């Protein structure tokens, strides 16, 4: 036992020394349920609770009780930047803690084999604030992206073994971007621009779940791409009076940000009465994110910008397990590998993206047969990643992306409470 502990501790420390992290590729947040997060965010093939409404709507058909589930995580993310040699310059983010959440409710309808549910969750988001006056303050100083999905869902069981489900997604999105402008003011106030917009959009989420044997189950789910099209967002320029012609007051902007589709597969294995194992894979269709353009209502000739993003589709691979330590206590562990969808040359200050390894753990405790809490903690690790001037030149992004090394770490605890009735 002691030896095992030492090995685990040592391996974690080694990962730590190599530094870092971010949550998930790009601006995806895979924090859809505490029980799932604790198991490497698996569960597409094994619907353990009603968080399956977002992860695999097909799994809801297997759940034979009404329930509510409220959960939230807290993100502690730190990114460091180091300029290319021989520069001694380093910068850090001072990102605000965010609380991605998920709320689910399910209802066993009077119609036989039909379940209804609703999920409210935050599958995408980003919050990054670089230290004031940092090297690339003209590219980005601060970003906040929030996406909230509301998904009413129906799920139907076909026979004993198959469940299918579909949900309609109403999405709300909000974005706030702040950056300094490359001009200087006599009054000493730093000229900057703040872009702020909200929007709504629609999408869907479908899934299938099946039992191959009593031990083995599978699932597949597809959540559609949702395009967040900001129209008429506020573009608030803080500039010296003499530049108000170039940067007009009360300006508005249009921009579009795709929230990519995700295709997921999962396998569940009930190894013993007390031990359940999962393996999942998710394909996120990041290639939808080709560029980020801002079009302004006033003075578009000067202000409009198009930034190349050219993300790539990427698979994430996950495993996780859950063990019943006692009748009331379940213990969980998991991990995943999440390669970056961003090539060198396209790394931006808003998504300083790296390949990530996530390690998670958690527990569930049932106070009563109806009420339980689940807690998780997720540690996301990666190695420093460098973007060179050469990379940027080859990508055609030179001058619009930072050059240097990035490294990130994230530590994300979370908790949920559920009640069935």
């Amino acid at each position: 036992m002691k030896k095992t502990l030492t090995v685990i501790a040592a391996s974690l420390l080694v990962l730590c020394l190599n530094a870092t992290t971010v949550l998930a590729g790009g601006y995806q947040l895979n924090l859809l349920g505490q029980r799932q997060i604790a198991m490497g965010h698996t569960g597409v093939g094994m619907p353990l609770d009603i968080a399956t409404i977002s992860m695999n709507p097909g799994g809801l058909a297997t759940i034979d009780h009404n329930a509510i589930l409220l959960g939230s995580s807290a993100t502690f993310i730190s990114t460091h930047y180091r300029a290319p040699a021989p520069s001694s310059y380093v910068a850090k983010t001072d990102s605000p803690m965010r609380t991605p959440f998920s709320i689910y409710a399910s209802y066993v309808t009077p119609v036989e084999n039909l379940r209804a549910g609703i999920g409210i969750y935050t599958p995408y988001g980003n919050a990054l604030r670089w230290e004031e006056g940092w090297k690339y303050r003209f590219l980005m100083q601060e970003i906040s992206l929030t996406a909230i999905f509301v998904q009413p869902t129906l799920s139907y069981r076909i026979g004993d073994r198959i469940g299918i489900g579909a949900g309609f997604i109403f999405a709300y999105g909000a974005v706030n971007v702040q950056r300094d402008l490359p001009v200087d003011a006599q009054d000493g106030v730093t000229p900057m621009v703040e872009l702020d917009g909200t929007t709504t959009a629609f999408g869907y989420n479908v899934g299938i779940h099946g039992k191959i044997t009593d031990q083995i189950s599978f699932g597949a789910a597809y959540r559609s791409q949702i395009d967040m099209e900001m129209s008429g967002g506020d573009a608030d320029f803080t500039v010296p009076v003499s530049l108000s012609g170039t940067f007009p007051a009360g300006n508005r902007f249009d921009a579009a940000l795709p929230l990519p589709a995700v295709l997921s597969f999962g396998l569940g294995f009930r190894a013993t009465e007390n031990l359940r194992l999962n393996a999942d894979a998710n394909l996120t269709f990041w290639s939808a994110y080709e560029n980020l353009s801002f079009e302004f209502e006033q003075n578009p000739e000067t202000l409009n910008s198009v930034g190349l993003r050219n993300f790539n589709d990427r698979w994430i691979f996950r495993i996780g397990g859950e063990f019943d330590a006692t009748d009331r206590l379940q213990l969980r562990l998991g991990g995943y590998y999440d390669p970056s969808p961003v090539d060198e040359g396209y790394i931006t200050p808003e998504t300083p993206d790296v390949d990530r390894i996530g390690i998670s753990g958690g527990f569930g405790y049932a106070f009563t047969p109806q009420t339980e809490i689940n807690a998780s903690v997720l540690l996301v690790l990666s190695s420093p990643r460098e973007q060179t001037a050469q990379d940027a030149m080859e990508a055609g992004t030179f001058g619009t992306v930072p050059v240097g090394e990035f490294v990130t770490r994230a530590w994300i605890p979370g908790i949920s409470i559920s009640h069935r009735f």
Partner: protein
Amino acid sequence: MKRLSQLFLSALAILVLVQCEPTLNERTPDAGQADFSSYVAIGNSLTAGYADNALHRDGQQSSFPNILAGQMKQAGGGDFFQPLVNPGVGSNADGQARLALQVSIGPDGTPSLAPGPAAETGQDIFSRQVEGPFNNMGIPGARSFHLVVEGYGNLNPFFGRMMSDPMATVLGDAMMAQPTFFTLWIGNNDVLGYATSGGTGEGFAEMGDPAAVAGNDITPMNVFSGSIDAIAGTLAASGAQGAVINIPDVTSIPFFTTVPWNGLLLTAEQAQQLRAGYAAQGVPAPLIPDFQAGQNGFILADPESPIGLRMAQQGELVLLSVPQDSLRNAGWGSITPIPDQYTLRASQIGEVQQATDAFNAKLQEAANAYDLVFVDVNTVMESAVNPGLVFDGTLLNTVFVQGGIFSLDGVHLTPRGSAVVANVISENINAKYGSTLSPVNVSAYPGVHFP
């Protein structure tokens, strides 16, 4: 089963407790084979931190030598002592305050943005307030040979305010700081005196007498060469390491490139009227400037033309010093030729470029002869013209006011321009001496300030 729960629990405990900062360690700059313990900057206004047509404290504090000294200090360099003036609007040699961008309302009520003095008069910067030896020996207005002229402080108040003795030379005072490392950026005024006065002085000559060189002449080659050898030779003989910086071509300096040569915009009717006007003055038809609808070259004074004037051609330059009111309202450049002192004609540009090339060749030769770093700022400024220089996610170029590199006098650097120059110099120093001086963030230094 018990062991399995212990495994889960202990792994969980580690995940909860683990707290590791990302690690990207700060690099520590190193001097390599260089000795930065006493850095002395020798030169003219560009070294002094002169900007916006005046010597003022803000400019001095963001002079390229002061920025470079900051980089050296990180690598074990010594303090850098500058002859700072008191805070304020500063002064040029004629007692005028620094320029600032100002909004003025034209006769037709449209606001425009133009540089103007920040105060009615400059501050007194020439009363002696400081004692050396100084690390920044940049003397605004100095030409190459001035640095070795005894008693130069009596001729130039910018040296007078800081000289160690009425008979001191700039080079002698520089040596008093016992430089282990120096930068020498001199020669700009040897050409610019002629260029900024519209080529009204003597052009490039191989031989001449320093005593006979007037303020708007090009320094004769023999005088320039002798001075560079004397300065670089003296410094090198003392064992100092250093860098020699060359002279940017006039075509990369906004003072010469801002007013377009063909800025005369005419309607067909106006063109016709102008032609008729010249004809009415008795100008023979073949010599009447060919005014056409659209953009036309300005009319320049040209003593070589039979009628003393002609239309400017592509490549010729109208200087930033030309009174804009006269261009707009007094018929300068159309009815009346722009006087010679405000233009550089093709032949005059030829003189300037011949001198610039010869001086730069000499500076490079001296750098090689004395085993010094040669910094080709000329080439850097050429790229700044086109396509521009990218630093920290922004584009800098040599456009007046907006470009970010040049201050409001169109000749001297902004703090941002000084940061670019300091980074270029330290990069060359690193290459020669194996040092790892750290470039500064250009985005941390301001360009032109807007009202």
